[in-house]
């Protein structure tokens, strides 16, 4: 249980700066997800917190103590790696108890802690096995078990689910979240998968090119993205975004008038954003031509052509429209997003 504070963190690799002065405060027991495309610096930030990378500038504090020059082993953290990093020559039991063994803890205490962790993670039948005898999901759980046994101040996860198949990933997502709700240990979780971020996080930090683009709770990021990058990154299928000009409380774009909330001045060049589920087929509205219909059961995804842009429309239920047919789209004005065309910032 601890707070984590990043202050003006800078990281250079040689002459290349990969992290540009990041500040981030994580409260006790919080689950924070760092999300962003590969190369955005999220893993580097996590590894600096873990003590696996030197910090070029700024300070990192765990529970109020600056740890810049503290060894990994003395930071009281536990990390789960993408590759699991289980010791191949040790049994599950030995893997999980390794950190305690290094601390010269008593055999009985190690056994007890390992047993408790194994019970939480349903690993009891596998304690005597070697990592190579386990499935991917089981190895993942052992890696988590190794972290739990230490009872650290902070859990660090570095893309822990990337090596699992889609179905298992969903299951492990739930397990990790349940584990956090049970243990309430401060957690920093790195992923490139925005769905993982959305479903698991208390707060998400969307990162891009070594900076935090926006920090907030998942729905805040979804409802009010601070800039174009966040708008495009968060949400699946992605938000429709196209160029337009603000005119009398609406936006003229793709040969049609799109309702907006009027935060742009008349004649201003803007980027107009609308999420697929806020763009519904209706009896009247903006004319569009259906290109592809993808029924998914409860919802139907339609790719429709308006002007020269292909927009994604997500409607509840099923659609009778077929490719080539004309439909009308009704954008919900309350859910329209306007961004400045030059800066990409939300208007």
């Amino acid at each position, binding site marked *: 249980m601890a707070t984590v504070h990043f202050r003006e963190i800078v990281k250079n690799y040689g002459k290349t700066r990969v992290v540009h002065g990041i500040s981030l405060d994580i409260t006790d027991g919080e689950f924070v997800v760092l999300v962003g495309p590969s190369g955005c610096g999220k893993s580097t930030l996590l590894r600096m917190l873990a003590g*696996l990378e030197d910090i070029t500038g700024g300070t990192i504090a765990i529970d109020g103590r600056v740890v810049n020059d503290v060894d*990994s*082993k003395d930071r009281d953290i536990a990390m789960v790696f993408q590759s699991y990093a289980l010791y191949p020559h040790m049994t599950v039991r030995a893997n999980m108890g*390794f*950190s305690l063994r*290094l*601390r010269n803890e008593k055999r009985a205490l190690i056994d007890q802690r390992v047993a408790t962790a194994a019970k939480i993670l349903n690993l009891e039948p596998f304690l005597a096995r070697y990592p190579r005898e386990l499935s991917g999901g089981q190895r993942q759980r052992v890696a988590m078990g190794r972290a739990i046994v230490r009872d650290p101040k902070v859990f660090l996860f570095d893309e822990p689910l990337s090596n699992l198949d889609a179905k298992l990933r969903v299951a492990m997502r739930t397990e990790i979240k349940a584990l956090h709700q049970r243990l309430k240990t401060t957690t920093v979780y790195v992923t490139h998968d925005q769905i993982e971020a959305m479903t698991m996080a208390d707060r998400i930090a969307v990162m891009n090119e070594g900076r935090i683009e926006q920090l907030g709770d998942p729905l805040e990021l979804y409802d009010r993205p601070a800039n174009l990058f966040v708008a495009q990154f968060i949400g699946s299928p992605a938000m429709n975004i196209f160029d337009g000009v603000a005119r009398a409380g609406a936006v003229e774009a793709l040969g049609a008038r799109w309702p907006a909330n009027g935060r742009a001045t008349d004649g201003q060049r803007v980027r107009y954003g609308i999420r697929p589920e806020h763009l519904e087929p209706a009896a009247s509205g903006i004319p569009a031509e259906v290109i592809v219909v993808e029924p998914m059961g409860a919802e139907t995804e339609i790719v429709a052509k308006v002007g020269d842009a292909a927009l994604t429309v997500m409607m509840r239920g099923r659609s009778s429209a077929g490719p080539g047919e004309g439909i009308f789209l009704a954008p919900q004005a309350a859910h329209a997003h306007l961004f400045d065309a030059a800066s990409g910032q939300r208007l």
Partner: protein
Amino acid sequence: MNRYWREARLWLVAIPVLLWTLLPIYHIFLFSISTKDSAFSGALWPDHPTLRNFGTVFRQEHFYLHHFWEQIWNSLWIAVAVGVLTLFIATCAAFAISRIKVRGGRTVMNAALFTYFIPAAFLAVPMYKAMGTYGLLNSRWSLVLAMVTLASPYAIWVLKQASDKLPWELDEAARIDGATPLQLFRLVYLPLMTPSLVAIGTYALLLAWNEYLYAFLLLSHENTIPLAVGLGHFLASDDSPWELLMASTMLFGVIWSADSPPEQ
């Protein structure tokens, strides 16, 4: 049909290779069970095969064999010492270069490897001088040190390549788990490197076991030389007891083939 062809081709290669390998050994064996008179008869099997030569060797009942057991012990002592020392040096070096990434480590490794451009025979005289300076001539240690010098660069290089293949995350996980570099070395690195260590240890051991030139040069007393040099003494006279030489050779070679661990 195709399968038979493939099999036949395999045999066509295998049989000559097998003969090539086994023929000299068979020759040694033939000599060692022949009497002195029939040793050079040219027969594929002696008329009166005998194990008496081995008895003579075991009981050291010949001028050239007076120190047989002592010399075989020297061979063993030196080979094991070279194996252990080379392993120790090469493992530590490989760990430092590959895992701790010591500054300049790669340069040291390349420099060590570079020494192989100079043939070992050229180094024999300087080595002799060096051992003389340190008063090590005629001590088994001189040969051990010389052989470790010759075996280490290759051993370091092989072990470095092998340890580069271990996932880096294991080191990081161990560091976070609280391992000191020494604990990392002992509890994670060494167990994972075992297969390579066995291979390199065997390499160094056999290199020393088979060494003749350096042993001949650095050691000259009947009771310090290894058996390889002792056997060389047989050739000092015109009427060498070939049957005894070959019987000793059988014993010299057989020790390791009988002792080598089964392939995993």
